């Protein structure tokens, strides 16, 4: 029997993986992918909650979140392109002109 708790644990794991990925991966594209993971973890939670509550609005929210995430990635990719062009790198670590 797969209960709500299972889903939530999975979602938390996904979220943590995403977060860990953001902190460890240098490549901007990978970082964006990890962000996507975080959002999907939230989506999973929404869906699971919606299912367990029997309330459809949670599932509706997921659509919104997906859209937002897509937009997020779009902007992110655009900036990645600018980076590649102007700074000739996609390594997030190397971008640290601004500090202190």
């Amino acid at each position, binding site marked *: 029997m797969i209960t709500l708790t299972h889903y939530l644990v999975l979602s938390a794991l996904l979220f943590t993986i995403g*977060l860990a990925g*953001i*902190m*460890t991966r*240098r490549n901007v594209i990978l970082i964006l992918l990890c962000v996507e993971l975080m959002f999907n973890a939230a989506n999973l939670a929404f869906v699971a909650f919606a299912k367990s509550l029997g309330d459809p609005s949670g599932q509706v929210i997921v659509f919104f979140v997906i859209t937002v995430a897509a937009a997020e990635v779009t902007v992110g990719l655009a900036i990645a392109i600018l980076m590649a062009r102007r700074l000739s790198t996609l390594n*997030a*670590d190397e*971008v*640290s*002109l*601004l*500090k*202190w």
Partner: protein
Amino acid sequence: MVTGFPVALAAWTLLLAPLAAAAGIPLLGLHRKRLSASLAIGGLLVPFACACWLLLHTLQGSLHLPLEVKVSWLLLPDLAIPFGVLIDPLSLLMSLIVTGVGSAIFIYSTGYMAHDSGYSRYFTMLSLFAFSMLTIVLANNWLELFIGWELVGFCSYALIGHWFEKPQAADAGKKAFLVNRVADFGFMLGILALWAHSSPLAAERTLNYQLLQTRLPSLLQSGWLSHETLVLTGLLIFCGVLGKSAQMPLHVWLPDAMEGPTPVSALIHAATMVAAGVYMLCRNFWLFQGAPAVLETIAWVGGATAFFSAALAVVEPDLKRILAYSTLSQLGYMVMAVGLGGHVAGMYHLTTHAFFKALLFLAAGSVIHGTRRQNIRELGGLRRSMPWTSATFFIGALALCGFPALSGFFSKDEILVLAHEHNALLYWIGSVTAGLTAFYATRAWCVAFLGQAPEHLHAHESPPVMLIPLVLLSVLSIVGGYLGIPAFLGEPAGAFHWDVAATSLAAIATGAGLAWLIYRRKAIAAEAIARRCAWLHRLLVNRYFFDDVYTWYVEQVQQRLIAGACALFERFIIIGLAVNGLAWLTQLAGRAIRRVQTGRVQGYVLGFCCGIIALLYLAGRF
């Protein structure tokens, strides 16, 4: 009988006319020399006339003394300080001296200072001085006395430093003021103590002489004013006298004060201001009477000053400084007299001293004016070139020595008699001092006025405007002993003591004779004596090292050690460590904190996660 308005007017005019002159001179134009002088002289002659008028009526019996007029200067529920004029025989006598001798000196000054660039400033300060001195004299309470006391100190400062471009003059003025300030520290505390103990009720405290005098017995009886407090208060108040009347060990400023113009020395540093201390002691004799310990201290200080200063005059080559040491010595006599319980004798000597010492100073001024020199070794034979000056100086010197029938003889005799009765040791000190006095006076006379004039000395007699005051003062110096001053003060002179007179005459004769032998006959070489008593000579030439010790204290201890240490503490501990240190720490914190901002985005994400954890932790706490 005169009463009411005319008397009040006379009293107020007596006090305020010089102030009006002092205010008028700068207001009406400092560049108008004649006007300044006329204002100043007028501003002193008018009070002199008032004083004479009051005296006349007193002697006629148509004026009842003491009389008091006053306005309230400070008026609060718990503090009422009047500003008043108290006229009794004592203050009347003193104001006559101040205005009379003062007028002579003012007139003399017009000649002496004729070509000075600070002419009007000089007369402004003289007038202000006259006012301040009269404030001391006529005060009816301690605070008013103190006000005058401080103001004469200021005038003395300004007049000593009249030629402020001369570093010595500027330093001397400063020294005079500061030494007096140190003394006034005690004086002020004494007055405060007196005020605090003048009544058990805060609202009824007073500084009025008459009130205090009447209250004193009951205060002592009730124990509110203990005997110890009275002694302490008396000693503190006497501190003021140490400064103003230049008693040892605070006498050091007076010889230096000779840097000022000579009329100033005559008026302030011989006749009037330095005598203020003695006057104050006499005026408040009732206070000291109750504390014999204080009187004894006073007597000893006076005796010591009389003797030791006279000894200094013996080796001094500067004419004015000789007179200054002489003044110290004579002041010592007066103080001793008061200490021995003879305030009338003290006042008597004060009066005659005012005459002859002013005379001596003015004569010395005339010499300086005529020769531009004041070292007696560079002078000589003035008897011929400056006959009037010499004659008057001679009269003054005789009076100073206590030559029989001259004023100084009578007054000094009074004091010696007193000492003879009360304290044998002081009596002998006084007699020896009389001998020393005769010695240095003769020395000055012989070296400066007799003998051959040195080369390049172009002496000329002074103008009449300077000579007339000299003559007037000579007359007073001669007749000062016959005016019945002690009787006027309410204590007729005692019987004539032949033994005392004989002793002192012997001392005078010895002193004068020795000086004559050494300096006129050259029978004994002065250098030889100096060589024989080298240590003594060194001690005297260096003025007992008082100045050296004080200079060392002021420059090394006070300025460099104490003030310097405070300045260092300020600079390095308070500013450097505490304030700048705190600022530095804050900046350091800023510089440390900005390092958190590494510029790496993944580090920021990590920070964000830490924040979440911190939030969770805090949520658990609250």
